[in-house]
């Protein structure tokens, strides 16, 4: 057991625990906090795979911006404790076999993959794998050549969302 492996299992466990807490918590803020925990734990997992840039962006965008807005809105509306309903019938009948199937699939994938060997070696798919020097030029080249289409498509998607938000907010006046 090397240190990266220990860290991997520790943070994987934290991520799963956070996800479980997110569902079980009744106070909306507690759910939001659990989600932040999941995101930070995921960022650490990215870091272990050598994807430093993705890890930092994960924290800045998700934990630092998206979730701050979540928490802000929960605070602003002073959302009360969640009400619990009886379990829905569809979830019980369709969900249980699907969950079982998903577990089976993950188990199958894990038994046959070599992903475990990648942890801590810095050979992950991320930009700026440790060892190689990270530069903004290198990153920009990747963004504007190999990944140009997804990059531009996402930008336009975000722009549309911003415009939509502005139009929705304007209606009130």
């Amino acid at each position: 057991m090397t240190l990266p492996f220990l860290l991997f299992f520790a943070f994987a466990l934290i991520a799963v625990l956070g996800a479980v807490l997110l569902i079980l918590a009744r106070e909306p803020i507690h759910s939001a906090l659990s989600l932040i925990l999941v995101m930070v734990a995921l960022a650490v997992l990215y870091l272990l795979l050598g994807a430093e840039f993705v890890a930092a962006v994960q924290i800045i965008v998700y934990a630092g911006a998206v979730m701050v807005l979540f928490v802000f809105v929960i605070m602003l509306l002073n959302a009360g404790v969640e009400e619990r309903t009886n379990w829905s019938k569809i979830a019980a009948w369709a969900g249980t076999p699907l969950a079982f199937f998903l577990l089976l699939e993950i188990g199958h994938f894990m038994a046959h993959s070599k992903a475990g060997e990648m942890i801590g070696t810095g050979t992950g798919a991320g930009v700026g794998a440790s060892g190689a020097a990270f530069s903004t030029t290198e990153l920009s080249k990747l963004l504007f050549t190999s990944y140009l289409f997804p990059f531009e498509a996402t930008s336009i998607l975000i722009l549309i969302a911003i415009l939509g938000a502005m139009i929705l907010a304007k209606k009130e006046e």
Partner: protein
Amino acid sequence: MEFITNHPVLVAAVVKIAVLLFIVMTALAYLTWFERKVVARIQSRWGPYYVGAHGLLQPLADGIKFLFKEDVTPPAADLVVYLLAPFLALSLALTAIALIPFGPPSAQFPNGQYMFIVSNVDIGLLALFAITSIGVYGVALAGWSSNSKYALLGGLRSSAQMISYEVSMTLSVVGVLLLAGTLNFNGIIGGQAGHGFLHWNVIRTGHGAFPQIIGFLCYIVAAIAETNRIPFDLPEAETELVAGFHAEYSSFKFAMFFMAEYANMITVSCLATILFFGGWLSPLPASWVWQNYLPGVGLILLGIYCAWDTITEMRGIAQLQFAVVTLGLLGGGALCLIPPVASIIQGPFWFTTKVILFLFFYVWLRGTLPRFRYDQLMSFGWKLLLPVSLANLVVTAFVLIFHLLGKQG
């Protein structure tokens, strides 16, 4: 012993963290003293005076007082979040300082480890922004979990303010990134080397560089707003909200918020120094060798002034205390005049000098400016600061690209 030789990185990291934590904690304590003294001077008062010579032991007395005050927890508070908030605020504020380089990479320990930075990561700037972007939770959660209307309003104001100004702060820095081409702090500082202060990003021209003075102004305004300081201290406006987000915190939990605020001030000052003012670089040309002796001479001059003060002004126990301070300054000055020490101390000396100037600026603002109204704060952030920092980015990019095109064609 074998463990120490086998793990040079780990051992160096532990030593550096311990030393840095001690220095930062002391600096935080004396920053409160510095602030009270400077504001008192601005307002024609004495400031702390009775605990120790010139009130120098006041931070210690305050610390002891914080520890022994009754720790009140509001009965309606959400206990887990209420306890989590101050820890989150302080630990994140202190973690950010681990990324700051206080000196050049050439200063190394015997085992080859970089002496003046705890964690020299490639994505330094992004990592710092990642840590500070989570920092807002300390304030927001404190406001929510106290279950008090003043605290909640403070928390809400703070979240809205930090989200608004974080955008401008990040954009104002991208101009520097264009010039540096790296996110590593030492890379950014290294790019500003040569010709003394004329080559710092804030006024640098030539080779496609657009002076980042506008970027710097945007950054410093956004940074003051990010740290919730006057004139942007609406989250804790005492005339409106009692004490804002930390109204329900007492004893050492309050002290933790206080320390977090000061640690954040130090972090943004360090960042301003690194990005715009050449970090640990000297403002004088490297060819002037005598500048190596400036720190030592400066300390000795300060020591001589203190000695004069001790003899003429001080009486009784204060005279004894100040004599110790004087001897410390003179001894430190003499130590800094030894050539090997003098060359190592260069980087940290210039870095801390610049950071102290920024901290003085912070305190100066506090003594000078009134507080913004909330709508002024929002319209200033979104309608002025954001467009200006965007324009700065666009102009910087254009100047750079025309320079590059000119070189090719």
